[in-house]
């Protein structure tokens, strides 16, 4: 009841093309995350699905029906915005019930629907308040509640956690994941934060400059990136890229994740000098510099003592490295 399909979707503002032909199909009940650096067109794409921007070309289909010319309110979707976008003059209850009221649903039914959504999100004590009397986290929960009340075919999230502080971000992220399990609804979620993408998504769509770079489950992207962009974007800390030729491999780049580099004081293939150490308790990040490969990150579990400017040797776990050709495409 909520499959989304994009066929050759493009968008231009004047002569600048911001979406350069996107093909994508999201299955019913799937949690799909659009991720990419700012300016990659992910929010524009989401707004086009919502009907807030017209597609310049291509088709947007929900459940097989072409939606290009359907008004946003008639597309049976709900959207949660980064800035919450609550109606300042309405109470929490009225904010959540407005869409149903506009659709002509009976008052008693609206009350049932808003109460159910409020119970899911723990908003019951706040129902009579106005947005100005709520904290940031509460406002975002109300915004999510407003989306649930409509029982839409499609949930759209536009960077919903960006305005929350770190602790609240994690809590709300878990709440959204739980919500997806309970509602089994199709969700499309836009973020620039790869951690959010990895933790929430069934499938991640990596976008760059208006094009899809790769689509896949989080682990597919992590274990099998198609190019250096995806390899560098997914995973934190970022993947190390080394000069392939100097390792005796065909020209191009070699990618190795920080957790797949081993460090030793005595021996190894790449000599390096420690330039910085970050101790996080559970793990230790060692940044070591090699004149040929630049700054390399090593991720170690547990606590380790390395001094700045100490000489170390790094070794690649060969079976975990990725080879890329000079254009940045994966060598297979």
């Amino acid at each position, binding site marked *: 009841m909520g499959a989304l399909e994009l066929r050759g979707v493009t968008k231009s503002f004047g002569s600048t093309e911001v979406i350069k032909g996107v093909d994508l199909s999201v299955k019913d009940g799937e949690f799909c995350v659009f991720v990419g650096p700012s300016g990659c067109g992910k929010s524009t794409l989401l*707004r086009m699905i*919502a*009907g*807030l921007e017209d597609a310049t070309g291509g088709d947007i289909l929900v459940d097989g029906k072409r939606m290009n010319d359907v*008004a*946003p*309110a*008639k597309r049976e*979707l*709900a*959207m949660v*915005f*980064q*800035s*919450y*976008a*609550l*109606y*300042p*003059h309405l109470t929490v209850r009225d904010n959540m019930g*407005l*869409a149903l009221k*506009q*659709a002509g649903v009976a008052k008693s039914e609206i009350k049932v629907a808003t109460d159910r959504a409020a119970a899911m999100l723990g908003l019951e004590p706040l129902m009579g308040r*106005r*947005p*100005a*009397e*709520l904290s*940031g986290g509460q*406002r975002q929960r109300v915004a999510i509640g*407003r989306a649930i009340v409509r029982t839409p075919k499609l949930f759209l999230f*536009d960077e919903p956690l960006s*305005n929350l502080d770190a602790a609240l971000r994690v809590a709300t992220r878990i709440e959204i994941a739980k919500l997806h399990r309970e509602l089994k609804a199709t969700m499309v979620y836009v973020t620039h934060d790869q951690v959010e993408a990895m933790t929430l998504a069934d499938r991640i769509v990596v976008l760059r400059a208006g094009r899809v770079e790769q689509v896949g489950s989080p682990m597919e992207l992590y274990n099998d990136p198609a190019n250096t962009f995806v390899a560098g974007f997914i995973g934190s800390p970022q993947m190390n890229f080394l000069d392939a030729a100097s390792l005796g491999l065909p020209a191009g780049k070699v990618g190795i994740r920080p957790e797949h580099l081993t460090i030793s004081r005595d021996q190894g293939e790449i000599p390096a000098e420690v330039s910085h150490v970050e101790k996080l308790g559970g793990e230790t990040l060692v940044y070591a510099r090699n004149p040929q490969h630049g700054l390399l990150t090593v991720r170690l579990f547990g606590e380790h003592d390395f001094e700045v400017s100490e000489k170390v040797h790094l070794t690649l776990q060969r079976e975990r490295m990725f080879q890329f050709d000079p254009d940045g495409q994966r060598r297979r």
Partner: protein
Amino acid sequence: MSARTSLGRTIAAHAILLTYTMIALFPVFVIVINSFKSRKAIFADPLALPMPDNFDLVGYQTVLKQGDFFLYFQNSLIVTVASLFFVLLFGAMAAFALSEYRFKGNTLMGLYLALGIMIPIRLGTVAILEIMVATGLVNTLTALILVYTAQGLPLAVFILAEFMKSVSHDLKNAGRIDGLSEYRIFFTLVLPLVRPAMATVAVFTMIPIWNDLWFPLILAPAEHTKTVTLGAQVFIGQFVTNWNAVLAALSLAIVPVLVLYLIFSRQLIRGITAGAVK
């Protein structure tokens, strides 16, 4: 050190502002005190405060006895409030269209609408009079309302468009997804958020209209359409001027516009948009 300079600055700023306030308010002050004095006292010592020995309400008595002053007030109020209503309504709607929708010639249209700020409407007086004669609107309040609406719109569109650009797009989009019509979005979401700007525009628009003598004199000088400023002119003769009555009429004319100003300025000050976004 820094505390002393900031104190010095505060004093300087206040001195400048107080001086300006005194200069601006002085004519009003002189009008009001002299309206309570006898004719002889006005000329003997224009700056003296009204005292028991020179106190005289003859000006106010003349004005009130002159009969039609109540009608003049009513005319002024109708013209000002109606013009204000239309300026705010149409100005806000045009500003919303310019700031919200992308269409061909958007910028050009904005410039065209703002052009009126730089061209005084009085340059077109003769043409306006000809139009009013042709349409039979001479000596009606409608003529004045139309002219003042046209006069106020450019600045209103200009200021309101800037403010409306700052209203959160997410909020408007949320309304669209919830099925609100563009009119509902405009009236219930956007207008309340630009209320301070509306109040600013209202004040800027209202005062020139209330004080105007030019268009009432040219377009509506008939007895039943006279405004207060025009009505006060009956006491200014070619040879004799009834200063008591003129000053009393002007003092009275300040009151309604002051009340309107107070209403709008409360809107200006009130913080109203907190919590809408972020």
